[in-house]
């Protein structure tokens, strides 16, 4: 029975939460997948998707970075930012270090982690604008 299958997902998010719905859709998808017993091996933030990690000083309760942090804390999600994409957007230093702009639960990584997770995954989904 298909409904009983437990699967390993990896998710790529390419869009900023400020200008497209894609990141929010991904968040809702991941919540539903977890609620149905599936595993999320990796959430990889690429291109403008790295902006999901940025803590905003004037964020309200709808702030997505805070909701990502909470979901990561609750379910042990691995939230990985592409270091090059994050450097280009000023989120991390030229040396690839966090400068205090990243919300808890996010870590800096690269395409190596993405490829590695894809090799282990049953399903790969990309959310983009």
């Amino acid at each position, binding site marked *: 029975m*298909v*409904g009983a*299958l437990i*699967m390993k*997902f990896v998710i790529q998010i390419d869009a900023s939460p400020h200008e497209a*719905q*894609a990141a929010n*859709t991904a968040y*809702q*998808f991941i*919540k*539903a*997948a977890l*609620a*149905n017993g*599936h595993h999320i091996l990796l959430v990889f933030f690429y291109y403008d998707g790295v902006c999901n990690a940025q803590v905003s000083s004037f964020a309200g309760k709808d702030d997505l970075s805070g909701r990502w942090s909470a979901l990561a804390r609750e379910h042990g999600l691995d939230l990985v930012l592409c270091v090059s994409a994050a450097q280009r957007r000023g989120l991390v230093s030229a040396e690839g270090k966090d400068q205090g702009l990243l919300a808890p639960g996010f870590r800096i990584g690269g395409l190596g982690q993405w490829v590695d997770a894809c090799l282990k995954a049953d*399903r*790969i*989904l*990309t*959310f*983009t*604008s």
Partner: protein
Amino acid sequence: MSVLHLVNASPFESAALSRCLARAGEGDAVLLLENGVYGALTGCRFSREVAEAAAWLDIRVLAPDLRARGLCASSLLQTLGQVDYDGFVELAVRHELSLTWT
């Protein structure tokens, strides 16, 4: 291997849906989500293309995105099924591959 096609752009502003329907194969599924849900509207220039495809292709619409845009059942093609996020996950499980059209 079957494919879950994700279309999140409105057909009023993107050719993604048309290109997707032209490439989808038998056994695939298409999910209209975000502004892509406008592809489920009836009485538009692309409605016939979508209705014809739905005769052989499993085309679904993400219900929360319909509600967010105030689209009610009477304005939609009746042959398209609706799913929630659980149904979205189920579609992803059922199809080995996914393709996001932009």
